[in-house]
């Protein structure tokens, strides 16, 4: 897993509440048996018209936001299914951080397993970043996981944040969960022996 230390990039404002996993990637695209290649289908139903052409109104189709690495959105982002294809699609597109006032549990968890940071910020801070990104297409921020801070170049926006320390440690170091767990092989075997 690629470590996440500092991420600098364009912010795409997706100003909606309850962005669900079917919006992020519809079920019809979950048939691949690979982990990659989902980026072209990210927000498929909104990015493309009936005939497959790009919908120019969708935020990621506007030139200034095309190369966004950070998405800012409303509360309960990622609600719905457990599909890890949702973070895979975001990552494959190039987005490594989603900022929102709250996240659905399974999506939140899935992000950390894939080197993505789902960053929960207070609603007023999310709103300020959202408005700035809307008013200034191409607006960039730095998400500094090491310093636990979000800031823009002019330092008009400087927000300190909290992330669970264990998850932060794993992201910073790009750690594989299974490897960590297998360090407790003895405890697992002892549990199984008690159960048998």
């Amino acid at each position, binding site marked *: 897993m690629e470590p996440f230390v500092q991420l600098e990039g364009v912010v795409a404002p997706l100003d909606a509440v309850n962005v669900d996993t079917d919006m992020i990637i519809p079920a019809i695209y979950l048939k691949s*048996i690979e982990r990659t290649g989902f980026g072209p289908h990210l927000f498929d139903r909104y990015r493309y018209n009936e005939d497959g052409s790009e919908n120019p109104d969708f935020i990621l189709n506007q030139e200034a936001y095309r190369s966004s690495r950070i998405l800012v959105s409303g509360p309960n982002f990622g609600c719905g299914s457990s599909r890890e294809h949702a973070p895979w699609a975001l990552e494959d597109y190039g987005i490594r951080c989603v900022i929102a006032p709250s996240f659905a549990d399974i999506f939140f968890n899935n992000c950390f397993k894939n080197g993505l940071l789902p960053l929960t910020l207070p609603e007023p801070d999310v709103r300020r970043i959202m408005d700035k990104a809307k008013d200034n297409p191409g607006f960039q921020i730095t998400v500094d996981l090491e310093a636990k801070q979000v800031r823009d170049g002019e330092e008009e926006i400087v927000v300190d944040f909290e992330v669970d320390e264990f998850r932060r440690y794993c992201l910073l170091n790009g750690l594989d969960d299974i490897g960590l767990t297998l360090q407790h092989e003895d*405890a697992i075997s002892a549990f199984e022996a008690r159960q048998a």
Partner: protein
Amino acid sequence: MAARTMFEKIWDAHVVHEEPGQPSLIYIDLHLVHEVTSPQAFDGLRMAGRKVRRPDLTVATADHNTPTWELTRPIEDQISKAQLDALDRNAAEFELPFYYDRFSENQGIVHVIGPDLGYTLPGKTVVCGDSHTSTHGALGCFAVGIGTSEVEHVLATQTLRQFKPRTMEIRVDGDLPNGVSAKDVILGIIGHIGVNGGTGHVIEYTGEAIRALSMDGRMTVCNMSIEGGARAGMIAPDDTTFDYVRTRPYAPKGAELEASIEEWRGLTTDSGAAYDRTVVINANDLAPFVTWGTKPDMVAQITDRVPDPASFGTTAEREAAERALEYMGLEPNQRIEDIRIDRVFLGACTNARIDDLRAAANVIRGRQVNSDVYAMVVPGSARVKAEAEAEGLDQVFKDAGFDWRVAGCSMCLGMNPDILDPGQRCASTSNRNFEGRQGKGGRTHLVSPEMAAAAAIAGHFVDVREF
């Protein structure tokens, strides 16, 4: 020992390792696997040279991609077929003893077969790469949906790393009024708490109305816990649960089972145990519900009207309601009963069990599906299908003009050939009414099996209490 909730008892009994500031390592008793969220997990094992630690605790089936047409007809979608073939290969390579492919008599929706076959039992920890794993909590176990990385983690270690969720009691007091089903209970609850009302929590459903539900009804309630944002839903096991388990083919039997039942009686929440939150609902306030929007908390009683977005308190709610009405092709203040439908889908892990089929059949017996409606029944498993056929329910549905299909997830999420056309409106017994969930541009209204059946006959939504 301090008084504990049912969830805490099950959690405590499964902790393998704990360290301050870290997620706990929890042992998993049952891992359910399906074709969509597992191929990348098996690939991960292969690349790392790892095995499945406990094939004997792993049950796999094919459900999401499987066509619901007759089994002799081949799969036409080659990408779906490749995903199903991958599960065949992985089950063989990793030597999974309990794999039910699409031709098996035990095949079906993973959340239908787990309890029905007797794999899901009280007190267990259950996971599956599917958010509706919450269904299994109806038997008094802790059951959570996980992502593919966690599927790989469980395959390799038979454990899951989890921060301990908070607990939430949802108590439904009183007796359910006539014509109000388990589906209406959970739609009413979600309408009350909202789509993120349960985030970070495990819900325990309590109260007389819950106790009075059959096991199939309890599964309907727990199934949609995730639609309220909860990690899991659960209901304390009681004699209804034990009677159900006694008739399951792969559950323990005889003295062994009776000894387990005595232990399971101790799983209930101790008096004096504290939940982090409690919500109380009066059963008398519940009625048959219909969703009008594109999130499961956008619900109205059948006798109500579509809300006016202007009536919502916040700008975000107003905009979400406006967008939902536009997508759904509805007008503010339109009577719910005046909404005409094109399709009826009776199926999904929410409502495709035998009780659901019986309830719907009772509504349509001797009547005809409206000529403007195409209606289909997709039983939740091959066993449910066989049971229904033995009772003659298939004939009741066919006589009324319903299409009688082969088991699978089907039009709940449209990964198989069963999808809505753009603009089509469907009365569906599934669990999600998200935009495009049942097919691009499709419009989904979530209802109970009884309400779906009545709508099929009438051609529009209708109050099943007066039907």
